[in-house]
């Protein structure tokens, strides 16, 4: 390693980024300015500093000029800080002897038409970066071991795929699901586009695989209560909601612990038959009844009954029906908690439909025969409440003219419940619905009211042609309103046919709204527990929209499925496999390096007052006895380097590594005094 003397020897490297930076900043002028700065021994420029020749310039300059600090003025550190740190290291310096000035995202892109102003600002940015670079210190990244286990939250098709991939890669995987069964939204669907596979038929083998896999620890009817730790070492507290019914394993455990005998639930349904409480069935979108003791649907995994304690009147009929041999029901069950340790986590928490009834002009929940796409799925499904016979809710008759309102709340930037984004699967499922009614009801005609048909996937456009040829009618126009005939309960759909250029009113027997999708209400709480950001549209934010679509800005947390943004089943499964791959890497590496930006206690200054302990959001600080004095100690693995304690400490005894007070003061002074203080 090159000897780093006290005297600063800084190299400044300016990137053109093609014309991204050089188009609005006079690089030559900034370079000449940089050369005048105190401690700068070389200033250079290149078209693309991140390229191999660009990096070589840094490496060579370090060696030739005996540099002890490197400043690169280029893009965002989020993009290329690792690149340039590695170059700094290759040149023989400690990688933290590097500072970056973001003259692209924070300058040239925002001041695109102000060459003079942008150039002056770039000079300031370089000045500030050099001021810090003069005071940089060698730091050593810390390695921590990684738990050989993963968490997947949400057991829809995405979560199941991710769990299977992780488990098949030899990683113990906790698959946590809020509902009593795995399967998610996909199990509510009848058929899938464009192949017209039966959704359940292709899903249930996966559900069985998940249930059988020795490395998958299934936790249904369970929610995440608390998340602590960091990549490699997450401690997650799970809340097992009181289910009131014991599976055979739990029954055996009970027998061992208390001597109460019973074989546990075998899914026979005797309890269901006698339960007197009837509630709407959420799996059937409220279109069928459900008892207070229930299984979610016929193909649940695990096959174990659940008591809805919000509805249960504790009459005890189910306990008698279950009998002393199985003795599976415990009406006094309470929530229990479990702490698990995992190295990485995947969030696959899914979506909801928007409250489309708030679009009053379309009459959902006002008019009987206006339903949503998800309700249509249940009505057309052979295992649904009507055994697959599509009927009008108002009179049970078979509808012959069925309207489909596409982009129902999607691609609409007028606010309220509307979403500016495309929900991405409604066009395709509406085409599929059109096919299904023409297949099942001879003579029935689907009318699709659309803006554009977005059939972008593999074999999707071909599917669109097929539905056109089968006789579906397409009317290009957004539906203004839907009115109900109060006597026949038929619906009059008013729209403008924009291809004919005139308003049309069409009478339908039934209307299906392809409602937009939105994040689940609990997504906000989950996001905050796991420290994941959200994008402007409310979905969970990926680390990079193109180059890191499965990761998040919190190390060790990954995303899969619609919770990151609307996507259909193939895309969800693809992302789940990507997330599983990304989540398995740190686990297989066995250790991860943490940035050494920890708080550090300067023990000779610390008075041991302990006031910093309450400030720390991560519980990383403790008071210890050392050499007969009480001083503060930082648990580096827990510290996130937020700086709260460092800013707070009354004695100035806490040093924030890489963001020390002298470094930050030097930056502020440099800007305000233009370097005059030195």
């Amino acid at each position, binding site marked *: 390693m090159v000897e780093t003397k006290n005297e600063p020897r800084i190299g400044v490297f300016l990137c053109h980024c093609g014309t991204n930076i050089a188009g609005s900043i006079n690089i030559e002028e900034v370079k000449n300015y940089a050369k005048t700065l105190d401690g700068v021994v070389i200033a250079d420029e290149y078209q693309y500093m991140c390229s191999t020749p660009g990096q070589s310039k840094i490496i060579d300059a370090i060696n030739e000029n005996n540099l002890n600090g490197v400043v690169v003025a280029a893009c965002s550190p989020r993009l290329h800080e690792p690149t340039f740190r590695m170059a700094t290291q290759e040149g023989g310096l400690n990688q933290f002897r590097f500072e970056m000035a973001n003259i692209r995202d924070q300058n040239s892109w925002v001041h695109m038409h102000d060459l003079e102003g942008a150039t002056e600002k770039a000079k300031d940015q370089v000045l500030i970066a050099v001021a810090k670079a003069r005071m940089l210190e060698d730091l050593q990244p810390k390695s921590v071991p990684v738990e050989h286990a993963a968490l997947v939250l949400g057991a829809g098709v995405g979560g199941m795929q991710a769990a299977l991939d992780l488990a098949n890669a030899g990683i113990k995987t906790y698959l946590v699901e809020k509902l009593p069964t795995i399967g998610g939204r996909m199990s509510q669907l009848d058929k899938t586009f464009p192949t017209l596979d039966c959704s359940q038929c292709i899903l249930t083998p996966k559900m069985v695989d998940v249930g059988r896999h020795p490395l998958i620890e299934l936790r249904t009817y369970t929610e995440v209560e608390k998340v602590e730790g960091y990549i490699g070492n997450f401690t997650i507290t799970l809340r097992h909601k009181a289910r009131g019914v014991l599976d055979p394993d739990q029954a055996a455990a009970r027998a061992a612990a208390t001597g109460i005998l019973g074989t546990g639930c075998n899914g026979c349904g005797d309890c269901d038959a006698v339960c007197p409480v009837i509630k709407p069935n959420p799996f059937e979108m409220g279109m069928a009844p459900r008892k207070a003791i229930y299984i979610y649907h016929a193909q649940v995994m695990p096959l174990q009954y659940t008591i809805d304690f919000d509805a249960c009147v504790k009459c005890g009929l189910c306990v008698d029906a279950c009998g002393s041999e199985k003795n599976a029901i415990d009406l006094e069950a309470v929530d229990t908690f479990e702490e698990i340790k995992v190295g990485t986590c995947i969030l696959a928490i899914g979506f909801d439909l928007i409250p489309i009834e708030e679009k009053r002009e379309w009459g959902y929940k006002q008019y009987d025969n206006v339903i949503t796409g998800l309700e249509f799925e249940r009505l057309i499904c052979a295992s649904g409440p009507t055994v697959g016979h599509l009927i009008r809710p108002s009179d049970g008759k078979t509808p012959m003219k069925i309207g489909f309102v596409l982009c129902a709340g999607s691609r609409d930037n007028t606010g309220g419940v509307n979403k500016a984004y495309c929900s991405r699967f409604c066009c395709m499922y509406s085409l599929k619905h059109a096919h299904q009614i023409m297949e099942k009801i001879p003579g029935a005609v689907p009318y699709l009211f659309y803006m554009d048909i977005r059939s972008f996937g593999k074999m999707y456009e071909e599917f669109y042609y097929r539905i056109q040829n089968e006789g579906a009618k397409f009317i290009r126009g957004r539906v203004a309103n839907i009115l109900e005939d*109060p006597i026949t309960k038929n619906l009059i759909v008013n729209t403008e046919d924009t291809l004919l250029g005139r308003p049309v009113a069409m009478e339908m027997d039934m209307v299906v709204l392809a409602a937009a999708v939105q994040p689940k209400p609990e997504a906000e709480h989950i996001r905050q527990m796991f420290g994941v950001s959200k994008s402007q549209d409310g979905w969970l934010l990926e680390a990079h929209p193109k180059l890191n679509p499965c990761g998040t800005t919190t190390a060790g947390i990954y995303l899969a499925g619609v919770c990151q943004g609307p996507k259909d089943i193939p895309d969800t499964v693809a992302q789940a496999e990507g997330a599983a791959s990304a989540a398995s890497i740190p686990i297989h590496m066995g250790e991860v390096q943490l940035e050494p930006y920890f708080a550090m206690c300067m023990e000779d200054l610390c008075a041991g007052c302990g006031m910093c302990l309450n400030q720390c959001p991560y519980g990383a600080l403790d008071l210890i006895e050392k050499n007969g004095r009480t001083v503060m100690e930082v648990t580096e693995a827990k510290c996130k380097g937020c700086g709260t304690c460092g800013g707070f400490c009354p004695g100035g005894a806490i040093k924030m590594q890489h963001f020390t007070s002298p470094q930050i003061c030097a930056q502020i002074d440099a800007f305000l005094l233009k370097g005059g203080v030195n």
Partner: protein
Amino acid sequence: MAGNMRQYAFFLGCIAPNRYPGCEAAAIKTSAKLGIELLPLKGAGCCPAPGAFGAIDLKVWYALAARNIVLAEEMKMDITLICNGCYKSIWEVNHILKHNDELRDGVNEVLAEVDMEFKGSIDVWHLIELYYDKKVCGVEKVRDSVVRPLTGTKIAAHYGCHLLKPKKERHFGDTDNPMWFEALIEALGAESVQYRNKMQCCGAGGGVRGYDLTHSLDITNEKLINLEEVGADALTEVCPFCQLQYDRGQVEIEEKFGKKYGLPVLHYNELLGLAQGMTPQELALDLHAIDCTPFLEKIR
């Protein structure tokens, strides 16, 4: 009694006092039984008609409406009124001038010529919203005031466009299928009926009646067909201009299209008057173009 009365400056409008004086009488007498005292807004002029004036010169519309508002400001009372057209003019101008200083200064320059100034110190209410508002009256109080329930009648509601729209500049919430007017109808003991295309225009507003009578009646006719379909005994509204269109319009429709409906059309205050025990003579129902007798017989 008088001590508990809320006082409002009552803006009469033009059609109610001139064509349907029963509306005016009913408004004053029925409100009194609901704790609302209507005091005459002395010196009030035309609202002025939003379609006719607004379409030609907005400044004139602002200034004339502002003058009416200033009269109430001088009385230190909120304005209430019984016509959607008046509501559009006076509520909306009050709202606009309160939020647009530039316009307000311009209007005040004009008003200065008659020694007046718009201050923005009062609010404007449609009488029907005061009835529905629990803080002022509320459906329960309306129900309690009924002495002769309209039991056995099927009454359809027509809200009228200017009351609810444009949605963004109003405060009524749902404008696609509101149900609060129906609640006020049912408070009188009647059954409120839903019909096809309830929120459709009466056909008169926006100058359509003046510009193209046949087209205007076409719209009215469609509404009447929809009402006939569900067997409504009467139509009620809160706008004398809508009332004129549905009431006299039926005579014109019979002349032009040869179709006779005979559907009585009553302002909500007239219905409320009947339910509170006022006589048809007090309500001047004989001045309606369509004979109200079949409806009156139903509630006898």
